[in-house]
């Protein structure tokens, strides 16, 4: 029953936003509905809800963590949207508002699915629901970004469907009566799965959902989409939506690890993780467009996530923690980047220079976000990135550890050049933009997100560490 509410409430909000006529009142639907959703999710932390009778729906710790992150972040974003959409009166916001609500509905579906087919349906719905966000500005550049996003996304999601079929083939036909794509039944019968098909399924699902996550070499849509979408939409894409395909990869990883393919899948994850970090390092250096820079930083962090999962239970623990840290920080970064973009009327170093003088709070948040995302203390990403480095050394992956440190350093230097030039200095000319200074409702949401990152860096609540630990062990087949 709870599953129906989790998926249905945001979907109803989406329909309501389509029906409401007034552009002024419509955005208020979001914070109202999202807070109901978040309170339902928080209630799930007390006791995990029981799986539905046929086993199609259920919540485990990994799903709950992603769902909580998504629900909380979308609530924060929706508060930002109230002011943002008021400033962007020239654009109708009906589709934008409805999209945000449908995104939460699709995210909920992905998180509570215990069936790989159902998970796929949610993932595709998520792709489609997010296209209007990228196209919000309705100009030629955003059109191009949307088209590339749709084409790459559809191809990726198609390959994931093929991988899902391979998974159904891996299940021996005669021995099992239940549906061959139920995750729990796949794990239960893991010993009988046909290994060649399972390997094929893992590769195709990794490529398919990896495209949605933006892992290299399937990341080419990412800088375009993040660059052209409004800041808040970039935050939704980078902070909320990338975690869903990651969850999909975690599901198939869990099946592989219980079927005895642990080393095979770990090897692939380490490889693709390091490749993504390397790609990000190459493109982030000399990047003049600060929104595209954030996109490459997202490619890097997605790489860190899969790399962490490839390094065993401890690495998985810190990867899951990093999922939270990266999501929160990316949200703050994109929101403040959006504020800076608006204040200067451009998103490259040529336009934006000396942001600290024009929008001091947003610029400070942007700087802090940069410090946090590159893994500096006292922010939480330091804990997770350091933990991943330690688990690489502990598990004897010296090469991976070396690459990890090298790429982190390169990305730090590359990002620093852009960020410092945007934040410090004196603005070149007087702006003719209407935006003067920070508006409280547009800096409060990133402040909330950054405080959460700082808080998690200083103190990890025990219920969170417990959930992360249980989830990491379950994913790696350790009991």
């Amino acid at each position, binding site marked *: 029953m709870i599953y129906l509410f989790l998926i249905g409430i945001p979907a109803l909000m989406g329909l309501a936003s389509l029906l409401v006529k007034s552009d002024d009142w419509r955005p208020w639907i979001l914070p109202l509905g999202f807070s109901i959703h978040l309170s339902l999710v928080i209630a799930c932390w007390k006791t995990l809800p029981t799986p539905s009778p046929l086993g199609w729906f259920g919540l485990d710790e990994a799903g709950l963590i992603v769902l909580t992150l998504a629900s909380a972040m979308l609530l924060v974003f929706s508060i930002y949207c109230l002011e943002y959409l008021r400033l962007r009166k020239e654009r109708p916001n009906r589709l934008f508002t409805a999209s945000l609500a449908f995104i939460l509905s699709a995210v909920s579906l992905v998180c509570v699915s215990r*069936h790989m*087919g*159902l998970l*796929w*349906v949610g993932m*595709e*719905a998520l*792709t*489609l629901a997010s*296209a209007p966000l990228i*196209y919000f500005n*309705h*100009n*030629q*550049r955003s*059109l*191009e*970004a*949307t*088209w*590339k996003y*749709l*084409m790459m996304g*559809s*191809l990726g999601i*198609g390959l994931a*469907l*093929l991988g899902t*079929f391979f998974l*159904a*083939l891996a299940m021996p*036909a005669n021995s099992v009566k239940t*549906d*061959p*794509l139920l995750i729990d039944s796949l794990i239960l019968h893991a010993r009988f799965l*046909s290994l*060649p*098909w399972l390997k094929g399924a893992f590769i195709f699902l990794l490529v398919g959902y990896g495209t949605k996550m933006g892992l290299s070499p399937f990341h080419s849509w990412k*800088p*375009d989409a993040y*660059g*052209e979408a409004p800041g808040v939409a970039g935050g939704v894409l980078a902070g909320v939506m990338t975690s869903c395909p990651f969850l999909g990869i975690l599901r198939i990883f869990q099946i592989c690890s219980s079927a005895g393919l642990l080393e095979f899948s770990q090897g692939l994850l380490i490889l693709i993780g390091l490749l993504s970090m390397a790609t990000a390092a190459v*493109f982030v250096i000399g*990047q003049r467009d600060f929104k*595209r820079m954030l996109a490459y930083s997202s490619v890097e962090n997605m790489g860190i996530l899969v790399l962490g999962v490839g390094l065993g239970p401890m690495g998985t623990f810190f990867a899951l923690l990093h999922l939270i840290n990266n999501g929160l920080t990316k949200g703050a970064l994109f929101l403040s980047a959006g504020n800076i973009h608006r204040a200067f009327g451009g998103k490259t170093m040529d336009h934006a220079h000396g942001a600290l003088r024009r929008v001091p709070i947003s610029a400070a948040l942007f700087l802090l976000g940069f410090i946090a995302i590159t893994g500096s203390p006292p922010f939480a990403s330091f804990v997770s990135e350091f933990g991943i480095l330690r688990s690489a050394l502990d598990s004897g992956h010296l090469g991976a550890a070396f690459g990890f440190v090298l790429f982190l350093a390169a990305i730090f230097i590359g990002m620093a050049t852009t960020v410092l030039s945007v934040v410090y200095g004196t603005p070149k000319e007087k702006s003719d933009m209407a935006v003067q200074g920070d508006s409280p409702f547009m800096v409060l949401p990133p402040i909330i997100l950054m405080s959460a990152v700082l808080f998690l860096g200083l103190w990890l609540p025990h219920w969170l560490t417990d959930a992360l630990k249980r989830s990491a062990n379950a994913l790696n087949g350790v009991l």
Partner: protein
Amino acid sequence: MQELSQILLVLIALFSFYALGNSSLIGCIRIIALQGMCLGLLPLIIDRQGFGMQIILIASGMFILKGFLIPRILSYAIREVKIRREMEPLIGYNASLLIGVFLIGISFILASRLPLPENIRTSLLVPVSLSVLMMGMLMMIVRVKAVTQVIGYLMFENGIYLFGLAISYQAPWLIEMGVLLDVFVAVFVMGIVINHIARAFDSINTENLTNLGD
């Protein structure tokens, strides 16, 4: 019934092949509509134990959506476009036909190597599904018109659906409907974007979409 399904499968493969060599946009849309209709009929014909409500539901859903609604959306999307032919594909028509033949050959070899049960391996379904899938991907890559790229995507998707039929994995009807609905909405969204591309650039060549990059 066995022969009829074989004929349908050959037709499905031929339609893909025909689309690869066709330069007319409307022609390609018609071909993909015919392929969609064949695809809708296929589950009714393939010999199966049960013949329940669900199969009829899926088959009619496929038939209506892929045979009529989706082609309608695509022709609606390009109604304002003046140039109705694919002008300069990245790979010419003869060359793409040759690659198509090559892909069909690969599919047959690949299908015979896959560790599939005997009765599936000998049927035409797997090689046809693989070749339709690969020709769809080819079309997505080498064509420059946005509509033909969508048609390539649809073909790719059709190939995947055929593969699902081939391994006789009967997905629960809810999921099958979900997949179908997702594809439909995807084409719907793409149709809208094509329409906007047509208005913004006065053409639907994706070659215009090259402003972004590093």
